């Protein structure tokens, strides 16, 4: 249970700990000015959104702590919506901490985790999805993560949820009217309309739900798994892709028995390349475990680079993998540098494939540029402007629950079942929207959301 008391005036250092150019101390609450005046000689007619260069003193006025830039944000005009004052002092932890100590002496309380954002939520300035986006924004370590989080903060995801909420409310109102006013010859909604509308909402939700995979790419990474026969050249390509010598590259087949991973940043997104054990029939217990691990990796992969030694006469392909993951496989036809290399991939594997094929060699680094460009384009397509993305597990779980409700509602409406059951499903789905936006009280959820924050935000 959250225990933030909103009547308190709180303070915290809003910048990371350690030395830096400046540190920002933030004060927020109804007594902001009263408390700050005990340390700083603020002008009587202080204006919102204006910076003042002022001396910051100890409460007992015995010493000056720092000279700092002080910015005041009036009620309704700040991050939290409450009156706020920010002190940008010199970037030594000693100075910021001394200011905090004196603020506490003056009557402030040290803020708890996420308390500033909680106040912004409580004041209705932001909804719960937006609060979560602040967290992902803070935690983002790539450009895309920051970009998508910022779009969410501006309300992009909230808009989508609200759109579904509106549609469901409309549908529910009509469904209820068809039950409660069935005796009055009013024009109520017919089964066909219910069906179409439910389908429409279902599709909207499904689309949103499917973005979670993209969201994972942003908050976590895009996973690219390299597979292929032993000695197809996976490890050398892996090394070339990550441009270091993390993997041991040898001429003896079956050296990479474990999974090796490394990150690079492509198109503003973290890309995790995963090198795997070569696929082949083996009785070696250690190798069998390695191959099993490879198969597990494939499930979570966003892209699979299937590496084929194009100098071989008849390379052995793993039919199961090809069939199961066809839509995320890209072929890397390897060893372009060798004379026996065959340019025509159809001839190499003996059949035509629809998948993208790149002719590459670890020895000719330029051959991999196209592969990287391919990934970059994939990322660009996935995150083009104005597409809301689901970022948090909590969001995914609620949308998934909605998906199940809407799927049942859809089936019920095509069975022409009594509308009270369709209404039940829609109500349940609607509750999920309320939960997503934080429009219904669930203190346990709120607790979880805001506990993830650091102090000072």
């Amino acid at each position, binding site marked *: 249970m959250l225990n933030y*008391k909103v009547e308190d005036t709180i303070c915290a250092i809003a910048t990371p700990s350690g030395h830096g150019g400046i540190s920002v101390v933030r004060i927020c609450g109804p007594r902001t000015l009263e408390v700050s005046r005990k340390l700083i000689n603020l002008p009587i007619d202080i204006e919102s959104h204006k910076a003042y260069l002022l001396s910051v003193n100890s409460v007992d006025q015995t010493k000056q702590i720092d000279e700092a830039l002080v910015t005041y944000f009036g009620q309704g005009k700040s991050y939290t919506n409450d009156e706020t004052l920010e002190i940008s002092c010199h970037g030594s932890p000693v100075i910021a901490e001394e200011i905090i100590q004196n603020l506490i002496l003056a009557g402030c309380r040290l803020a708890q985790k996420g308390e500033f954002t909680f106040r912004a939520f409580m004041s209705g300035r932001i909804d719960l999805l937006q609060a979560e986006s602040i967290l992902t924004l803070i935690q983002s370590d790539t450009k895309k993560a920051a970009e998508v989080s910022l779009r969410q903060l501006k309300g992009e995801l909230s808009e989508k949820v609200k759109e579904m909420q509106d549609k469901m409310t409309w549908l529910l109102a009509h469904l*209820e009217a068809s039950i409660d006013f069935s005796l009055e010859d009013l024009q109520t909604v017919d089964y066909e309309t219910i069906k179409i509308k439910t389908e429409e909402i279902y599709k909207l939700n499904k689309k949103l739900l499917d973005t979670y995979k993209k969201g994972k790419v942003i908050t976590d990474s895009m996973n690219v798994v390299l597979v292929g026969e032993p000695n197809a050249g996976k490890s050398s390509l892996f090394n070339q892709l990550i441009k270091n010598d993390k993997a041991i590259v040898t001429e003896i087949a079956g050296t990479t028995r474990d999974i090796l991973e490394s990150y690079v940043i492509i198109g503003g997104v973290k890309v995790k390349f995963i090198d795997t054990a070569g696929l082949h029939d083996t009785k070696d217990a250690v190798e069998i475990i390695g191959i099993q691990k490879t198969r597990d990796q494939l499930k979570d992969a966003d892209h699979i680079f299937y590496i084929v030694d194009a100098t071989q006469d008849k390379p052995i392909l793993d039919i199961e993998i090809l069939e199961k993951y066809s839509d995320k496989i890209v072929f890397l036809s390897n060893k372009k540098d060798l004379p026996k290399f065959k340019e025509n991939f159809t001839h190499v594997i003996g059949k035509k494939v629809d998948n993208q094929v790149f002719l590459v060699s670890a020895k000719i680094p330029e051959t991999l540029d196209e592969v990287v460009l391919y990934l970059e384009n994939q990322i660009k397509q996935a995150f083009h402007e104005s597409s809301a993305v689901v970022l948090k597990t909590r969001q995914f779980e609620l949308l998934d629950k909605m998906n199940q409700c809407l799927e049942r509602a859809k089936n019920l409406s095509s069975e022409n079942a009594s509308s*009270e*059951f369709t209404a*039940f499903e829609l109500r*349940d789905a609607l509750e999920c929207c309320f939960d997503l936006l934080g429009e219904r009280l669930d203190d346990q959820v709120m607790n979880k959301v805001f506990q993830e924050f650091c102090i000072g935000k």
Partner: protein
Amino acid sequence: MKNQFDIIVVGAGHAGIEAALSSARLGANTLVVTTNLERIGFMSCNPAIGGLAKGHMVREIDALGGEMGVATDESCIQFKRLNATKGPAVRGSRAQCDKDLYVSHMIKVFKDQKNLSLLQGEAKSLIISGSKCLGIKIQDGSEIFAKKVIITTGTFMNAVMHVGLEQQAGGRVGDNATVGLSDQLKSFGFNVFRLKTGTPPRLLRDSIDYSVMTPQPGDQKFYPFSFKSGKNYKLPQVDCHLSHTTELTHEIIRKNLDKSPIYCGMIEGTGPRYCPSIEDKVTRFAEKIRHQTFLEPEGLSTDHIYLQGISTSLPADVQDQFIRTIRGLENVKFARYGYAVEYDFIEPTQIRPTLETRAIDNLYLAGQINGTSGYEEAAAQGFMAGVNAAQSLMDKDPVVLRRDQAYIGVLIDDLVTKGTKEPYRMFTSRAEHRLVLREDNTTDRLLDLGRDIGLITSEDFDRVSLIREKRNVQRNYLRTTAIYPNKDTNEKLIALGTQEILKPTTLDTLLRRAEISIEKISAMGHNLDLDPEVLEPVEIEIKYEGYIKRQKELIEQSSRLETYRLEESMDYSKVRGLSVEEMEKLLKVKPLTIGQAQRISGVNPSAIQAILIHIKGRKKIHQLETNN
């Protein structure tokens, strides 16, 4: 006449009857004061009891020990189960009643009731000392004292009847208005507002040409409202008839709208949106070329026919014109013209969930005075007010029904939490837990409570227990008996219009198929009790088990907040983080639980959070103080 009672009930309409009977039956010495002892339980408007969601409430009143269900069964001249093709939770029973027989049943019950005295008279004012109600003063100036007073004056407070632009004081044709009471309540700080309602013309049977109308017969099968009633109709059953207005009807109405008191601004009160007058319908649904009307007989021995759906307050001469444009009514004769009534009601957020007013102790309000419409809504409140007044006299805990327990719980919680701006009518959609609030399981939900209160006799209780036991037997039989995929079984299944089975299947699994019923299973050679009272709830519970289970889970989830108690004395002005609007609303409604606070319109989830934080903070301070 002695002038000291335990409980005085002012009014003897549907609310007053239940209030008086429940208090008298619980042993309180009760007096009913009404302006007309001939019209106890008179149906001022339509001659029918029940309907969607309303039928539920009649059964609930019955299962708790009220009278409405019995009286309805006694006077029923046509019965229908509405929404019969829809799911089990939204089916509702409705009965056309013989108005006179309904009244004479109630008069007889009143006369036979122990602890109950009757007085014809008008309550002029309340005797109030400090913030306590001590009794009433009647028209001759004499005072009658009581420990509790229940006001059930319906639409009679400061009532004005309108026929066209003519007005006349009165709550109903033939009865006077109650003047003075609402002014007195106003002087005690009550918010009093105005509502209006209307009633259609009554026509003479022999002047109607039924041959051009569609007969509307009732159902063959009777599901009595009272668990105490027999399963056969007591009276001959009659047909209603369906006819329609014409474009000419609408034209006449439109031309004369300036003579309608509502349209020319003479009536300020808000009308029932869900039961609009024909003037409203013609204006709001201008594109419709006809509106339906049902011609409902008001009884077996009267020739008055109620013109359902054509409530109007247009002048008599306009009614003469437009009514005769309805098919079959070309030469109709009027028994009485339609009219509108405007009356005072007390904003119901000023009463507690027990229906006692917050401002004046020992004063209870029930029925249309609280802004509701409908006989059933009124009776439900009257019953609860009577029970709570009597419980309080005996120093017993108040009886407040939960929203997941009864429609009556939804009704009263809505009224005291949200208030109302128009005549409040019950709908199934108001009950968020309606899948478990069905007509078929009413006794399961409420009979135990009725017995605990003391209004259900042990003979009645035992009789229902026997039925419940039969249901258990049937349920167990269906759950534990399996059929096997052999030739004989599968042939039977195909004959019943369903697919064959491929593996051993229990009967309850089979019953979940849409086309299978308990009757069909019985036809396969299983010896099952086919009494609908036994079979129906069992069948519904099995067929809709998944949904019922999910509904119960939702109830479970919400119970955490529903049981989180708030002090009535809580000072919301001290809670930081509330908007001024939220603070005012919370101070007005004074919710008793977090769940109730959450339902106040305009109170946001963040406000609830702020209240929780405030309470926690205070608890912490309290702990610190006690530790020191």
